């Protein structure tokens, strides 16, 4: 199979992920308060970043899709949304595990966790809507509309939850990051980005192939009988 630059960069991304994870797990120092649990960060934070990148890309694709009306952008939109949803779901699982280890609970109505959850529901809704719409054109414009509204909604959710939470407790996520922790974080983020781009582009290509498989060439033109006058 011919491997394009996206494929090669995804392989490079895998290598980066391997190196970054190795450094994160075995080389970087343990965090002062959280100990080794903090090592979840090296996968958790890149998931959050790249998930957000996916949704941002989906938002841009949605605008282009509405504006140009070309279905290619709809394919790309699905790719970005679906990969974003996968990463976001992983993010919630990792966050939940981390929460269990540090706070003792699987779930906490923390700002980021809550926002991620709502974001997941919003974009999973886009995917659900696509399955319900039968017409190709409607599917494209409706998913673009839902993506745009959903994306615009995310910061609103974030601010709202922050205000809502601020009554109960101050934010407790430690923000100080040791320089030794930055390197694996960056390596993993770049690696995951490259892999995510590959996955999204594969998904987009799949959507395009499906679109074509669902369509058919017009039938052969039949000869029409022309009558000049009565």
């Amino acid at each position, binding site marked *: 199979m011919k491997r394009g630059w996206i494929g090669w960069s995804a392989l490079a991304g895998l290598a980066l992920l391997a190196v970054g994870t190795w450094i994160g797990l075995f080389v970087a120092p343990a965090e002062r308060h959280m100990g080794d649990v903090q090592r979840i960060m090296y996968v958790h934070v890149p998931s959050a970043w790249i998930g957000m990148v996916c949704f941002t890309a989906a938002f841009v694709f949605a605008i282009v899709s509405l504006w140009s009306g070309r279905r290619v952008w709809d394919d790309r939109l699905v790719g970005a949304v679906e990969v974003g949803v996968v990463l976001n779901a992983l993010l919630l699982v990792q966050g939940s595990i981390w929460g269990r280890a540090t706070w003792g609970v699987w779930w906490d109505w923390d700002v980021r966790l809550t926002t991620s959850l709502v974001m997941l529901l919003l974009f999973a809704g886009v995917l659900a809507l696509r399955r319900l719409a039968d017409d190709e054109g409607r599917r494209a414009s409706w998913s673009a509309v839902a993506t745009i509204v959903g994306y615009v909604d995310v910061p609103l959710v974030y601010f709202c939850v922050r205000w809502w939470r601020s009554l109960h407790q101050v934010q407790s996520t430690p923000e100080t990051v040791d320089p030794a922790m930055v390197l694996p974080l960056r390596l993993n983020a770049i690696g995951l980005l490259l892999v995510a781009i590959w996955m999204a582009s594969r998904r987009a290509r799949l959507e395009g192939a499906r679109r074509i498989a669902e369509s058919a060439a017009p*039938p052969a*033109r*039949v000869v*029409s009988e*022309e009558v000049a*006058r*009565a």
Partner: protein
Amino acid sequence: MGVCSPLSGWGCASSADSTLPVGAGLAPAREGARPSPTSCCPVIHGRWLRREATPGWYRSRPGAQGTGGAAPVVSARVDTPSTAPALVASGLGRRFGRRWALAHVDLELPAGGSLLLAGPNGSGKTTLLRLLAGRLEASAGTLRLFGLDPRRHRGTVRSGLSMVSHHLSLYPRLTAAETLALWLRLGGEPAPAERVRELLAEAGLEAHGDVEVGAYSAGMRKRLALVRVRIERPHLLLLDEPFSALDSAGRAWLAEWLAGLRREGVGLVLASHALEWSAPLCERAVRLAAGQVTWSGPAAALLEAGG
């Protein structure tokens, strides 16, 4: 700004086109809002005129706006309905999933012309009408209405079109009078009681104006939906099976009513099985089968050929 087609005896269609330069609609208003001599608009409301932009195919007289002579009222990309064909379709097709409901349709209809679409159920007549009305996007081919691309000039094209389809687009809980008044007001016209009564009389519904449409018989509903077209003052009227659901008196009424519209220069595209009623109303006819045009010629010849 009123649309005044030389062909249309109906006077002004109230309509607007947001895609046109603002100046096109504003300039004549400054000049005192007088209709041009060639205009057939009986009444122009000054305020209304000032606020509405010019529809695309309206060509103002040279110098109609008098603000330095060469103000761009005449838009280069539009034409009057008298010269631009009402409808040009080439290679038009529509696909639903893998099935092409319509393919390779080439049609041309001169302004004010009339066309009969014949063919069995499922041959693509309704799909074609919906494509023409802009309620469905074509999967293939190009379409020009009044010389304009309906995708780029949606508002303009729509204000020149009317369609009465199988679904009549009536609200069952509104009375006939309310329906007509709503339609008048949506176009920016006043809806005085006598105008509404006039329209009701035209549909033969004077006695039922205050009855909710949901209580009407199918024929009455159809007549109401048809008469509502009057308010829209189209240049091109698209009808899907207009003769169905009507009794013989109703059909006679409709034939007469449509003939009246034709005399006023309204273009007509009519999909019908009732050839004995519809063929005399149309000049040209095409027969569709499995989504393609299999026969085209004069409507009278189609009648002779037995459909």
